[in-house]
């Protein structure tokens, strides 16, 4: 009971600090400090409440236990990371994005195809494509190839739709200007339309980066060799080894946000001129 009261105390302190911070002069640091305080407070409370109320570790392990599991099984986590993220998600991401980009360039030349594919692409983007996973596992086997295939199928349409829309983003006046220079298709593509499309393409790439990891993990629920993040999560949950499952989720969270962060960073460098990136 003492620990639970302590948890409430920690919460009150954390909240108090954040209220104080929010009354300071606004700046970039403010949100960073606040978010960190909030995160740290949440983890400490989790620890105190779980140990204080003696919650069984098969329901919710305390952060300390997750940390121990993380440290003691880094080799397993690393192998899972390589299998799921590098082999499954990343290779699928590269294949899927390139395929979608090339398809977009191909259909961009035909107005008829664009008008036909865009509504379908938008429609497909809303479907539970992840359901294709069992079929693709049957076709491509249990190993990473089937996971990469799931990723390709999941990200193809979001990237395609964004790229096609992006290729239409250059303004009429700018195109007319290219026309007056007698620029050819490729000149106009590389000098005007692709740069103008970049913000849209990056939007597609960012969406795809989160979908890729989800696809690779969930596809493993349908069958995998005895390695992989999704495999570990589903079997770990079944065996009630929740500390390892949580450690795996921590890895997934870090990998997911780092992947997204890297794509966003490249976007910042590449589209610094766009209003959304200007400071």
């Amino acid at each position, binding site marked *: 009971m003492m620990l639970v009261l302590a948890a409430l105390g920690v919460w009150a302190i954390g909240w108090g600090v*954040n209220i104080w911070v929010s009354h300071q002069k606004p700046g970039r640091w403010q949100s960073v400090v606040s978010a960190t305080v909030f995160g740290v407070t949440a983890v400490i409370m989790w620890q105190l409440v779980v140990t204080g109320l003696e919650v069984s570790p098969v329901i919710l392990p305390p952060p300390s236990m997750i940390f121990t599991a993380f440290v003691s099984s880094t080799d397993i986590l690393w192998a899972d990371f390589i299998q799921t993220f590098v082999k499954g998600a990343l290779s699928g991401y590269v294949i899927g994005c390139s395929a979608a980009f090339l398809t977009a360039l191909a259909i961009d030349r035909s107005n008829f195809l664009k008008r036909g594919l865009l509504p379908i692409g938008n429609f497909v983007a809303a479907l539970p494509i992840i359901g294709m996973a069992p079929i693709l596992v049957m076709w491509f086997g249990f190993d990473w190839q089937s996971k990469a295939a799931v990723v390709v199928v999941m990200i193809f349409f979001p990237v395609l739709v964004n790229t096609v829309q992006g290729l239409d983003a250059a303004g009429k006046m700018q195109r007319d200007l290219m026309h007056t220079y007698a620029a050819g298709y490729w000149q106009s593509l590389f000098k005007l339309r692709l740069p103008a499309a970049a913000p849209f393409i990056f939007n597609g790439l960012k969406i795809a980066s989160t979908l890729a*990891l989800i696809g690779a993990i*969930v596809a493993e629920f349908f069958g995998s060799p005895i390695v992989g993040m999704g495999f570990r999560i*589903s079997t770990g949950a079944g065996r009630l080894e929740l500390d390892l499952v949580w450690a795996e989720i921590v890895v997934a969270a870090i990998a997911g946000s780092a992947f997204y962060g890297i794509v966003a960073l490249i976007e910042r460098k590449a589209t610094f001129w766009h209003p959304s990136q200007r400071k």
Partner: protein
Amino acid sequence: MGMRNILPVFTVVMVIFALWYAFAIVLNKNWAEDKATRGGYELSFSELVADTWSQKKPRLPTPDQVAGEIWQSTGVAAAKKWRRTAGDPLFARISEVLNDKRSLIRHAWLTLSATMLGFVFGTGLGILLAVGIVHNRAMDNSVMPWVITSQTIPILALAPMIIVVLNAVGISGLVPKAIISAYLSFFPVVVGMVKGLRSPEAMQLDQMRTWFASKSQIFWKLRLPSSVPYLFTSLKIGVAASLVGAIVGELTISQEGGLGARMLQGNYYGTTLTIWAALILAAALAAVLVSSVGLVERITKKRMGFVQ
């Protein structure tokens, strides 16, 4: 999608079907040829095509096979049950049909109810949190970065654990799936709603100040109506995510049924037709859900004067 897109869309759909049939030949060819070699007979091309389009356990079933499977497991199954329960009261007959374990209707219904329950809760909580974030600087600073980060991490990976843990504490059935659905729709709604509630321009807020409007008047008369278009964009993403959540939830507790459970069953027994039937039904469900939200969006926006 305007009238002028109908012909292109129709053409593309036809091309997709043609490709589908072509791929069915390619993918199912081996099995047909193996059978022919074992039986010691030659297959002409037309016989090969006929065989690949009508196998019992094809690697890729054709669209008509999938449609047939869906019809068998919905319409035919329901009709059978309906005839068998003749004489029972009407209401009991309907519930018998809906609860027929053999019928895909039951599985789709299970998935739909978990999706809707989760979606309603996720959306409600999302809107509440967004209101808090917009009105409280401390909350904005501390919670919002985590909400945004959570969009970039595969929270769907939590699904098996949530199901197992809730089962361990005695919660099973609809609720665990609905919880996964709820948190998948929660985050897009928070992000969209915060954006929407902040969408009024500085000028419009200044205008409210000159009239000495209170915080709640600004909220009800300016912020909330301004957020409607943003909310609907999020709701469309949210409802699709809710469905995915429910389906993935069903993968872990397949004994309770649902479209996800059917997919896992098909995966387990190698019956591709089962998987495809469940998959197409899930896609249809997603289409119906998203377009219903789209319909409500159109009506609301029209009534509110957002569109001409």
